[in-house]
């Protein structure tokens, strides 16, 4: 994960540098805050990846000489189908409609969102549904 972390730390370094230059030349607050925020967006995950790279060393995908055989075994568990993202999307849709058309939309929105969160959680615990 070394290159990944350097990539993100590069983002942080660029925005840190540009943020400082921008502030001392313009004294404009909004742009400076956004540049500093972008600096942290790179710094936090970049530092995290670097920390774990130092503990874990190179993964198979980091090694140019790694073979497919070395990676044999489980990659991960992937859900193949789930209705809950759709239900959650409908809940978000109803929520924004509440802001435009009337507060009563919040009731179906809450019902959809809560059922989606509960359903997705139980689905993960049970190992899948649908």
């Amino acid at each position: 994960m070394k290159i990944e972390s350097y990539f993100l730390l590069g983002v942080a370094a660029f925005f840190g540098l540009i943020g400082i230059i921008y502030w001392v030349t313009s004294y404009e607050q909004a742009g400076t805050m956004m540049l500093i925020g972008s600096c942290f967006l790179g710094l936090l995950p970049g530092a995290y990846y670097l920390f774990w790279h130092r503990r874990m060393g190179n993964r198979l995908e980091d090694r140019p000489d790694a073979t497919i055989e070395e990676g044999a075994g489980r990659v991960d568990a992937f859900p193949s189908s789930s209705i809950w993202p759709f239900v959650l999307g409908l809940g978000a849709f109803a929520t924004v409609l509440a802001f435009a058309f009337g507060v009563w939309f919040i009731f179906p929105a809450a019902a959809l969102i809560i059922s989606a969160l509960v359903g997705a959680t139980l689905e993960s615990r049970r190992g899948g549904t649908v």
Partner: protein
Amino acid sequence: MTDLIDTTLTGGDIGHPGVFEEVEAAHEHPEHGPTGILKWLTSTDHKVIGMSYMITAVVLFYIAGVLALVMRLQLASPTSSLLSLSAYNQLFTMHGSIMMYLFAGPFAFGGLANFIVPLQVGAPDMAFPRLNALSYWLFLTGSITMIMDFFVRGGAAAFGWVAYAPLSEATNSPGLGGDIWIMALVLTGFSAIFTGVNLVATIFYLRAPGMTMFRMPIFTWNMLVTAILILIAFPVLTSALVMLFCDRHFGTHIFTVQGGGSPILYQHLFWFFGHPEVYILALPYFGVVTEILPVFSRKPVFGYKGMVFATMAIAALSTGVWAHHMFTTGVVLLPFFSLLSLLIAVPTGIKFFNWIGTMWRGQLTMKAPLLFCIGFLIAFLMGGITGVILASPPLDFFVHDTYFVVAHFHQVLFGTAVFAGFAGLYYWYPKFFGRMLRDHLGKWHFWLTFIGFWITFMPQYVLGLMGMPRRVATYPTNLGWQSWNIASTVGAFLIAAGFAVLLYNLWISWREPILAGDNPWDGHTLEWFTTSPPPHHNYLHLPPIRSERPTWDYNHPDAPTVGHGKQVRPRPGTPGAPALVGARSGEGSNGSDGRSTTR
């Protein structure tokens, strides 16, 4: 259901193809679960989601295109009464909003990236499949919300796709149209953020063994950089829109002078999103072009690392130039933003040099994908050069808010999202469906679009220099603007004819399919190693990954495999040059040796 995915076991054993059958039998991952519409509603497969994104985005592209044609008809006459002034305002707002927020971006990072990136890195799916599905549903409901805008009392939003305050405040733009527009973008904004997170996680964590960062295809690199840009830019837009909504309804005065707020703050927030957004729309399409040019030139990409670092430089600089859209406000630091804007020309020039270098002395195959890529190069070059003009404050002051700017950004965005985007459609369509699009119809599509493109937008530069302001529905009759406007309208209808040909091509290719095989172009990257369309969870086995083009290495075992940028291959026609295979030689669609995957 939850699938536990095992990696497959082939590796470099290309001398013993029989091993594959055993592996395939042991590692089938048949798709289970619902079928029909329930499959569409519940699928977390990145290919189904990517295809849903692309179909939705292309439908929206056609809707926004029709809006553009109506506007061009209005402008063909100086005093046309086809549209009322308010209807015209609504049309250009919705045309820009749909094209920018719902077509150009989602087609690339929601559609193409969703479908292609996991395939290119050798992953079974995106890292967070259910989050991926949620992203699509937020995009679809956001798109429906945007279209609903036409049907609410008072009509659609009419403040332009940038929604500048105070024009977009409740006193100047009352009614539901503005509210619905804001909510549509909040939904699609979250959709984009979730997709960005998913892309970064997939690229960082799900690459196949041996797929190091500097062996990733350029398209995947560009999507990684685009995803970072999304994570930087979209939260700012969403925040600005929430603040705008609060101003409209909750009595805050964040962007209104009367209450102590600042309209300029809205412009800062919007353009901190808006200019990276241009590159969020452009970088994926740069990646598409960089995938297609090597395959249709039968050469490795020229200057792989230069391409990667140029992409990073463009993305980084794009986030430091937002206020060049605000030069005429008089309250931004002109030298800072002008310098950074001009600097973007350097990495973009490197990319052009490398694209030309990739084609240089290659064996060009003039199929529709390559034609669209060349169209992109020419169109984007023109848009880029006029961008350099606009980066200079004295020149920008002269043409600001004229048709010169309209022509510039249409050449940039049409060049990328349309020419390169549809190059990608022609290129990957065989992978999506296992069928070919008709190439001769693709060429008709290209030439009509290409000729129409120049006839539409070049007159708009002239109109801008003559002083015609943007966003006007009528204009004086005595300024000589009408003939240029008529030419622009004729060009727009030529483009429409081109896209009618595409519809026919899609229809005829679906009704009378020409089977494509798994690798009709003799492609370089991993997605061409699997079947067309790919199976559930993508790969039954993987080839060894020893360069940035593992499929080509596998199908051409006699050619030298050298890392990025150092590939030394015998020139065609000299001893030791590899035999041509695939589309040009007609030796079968799976490569030269028939050891590719079987369906």
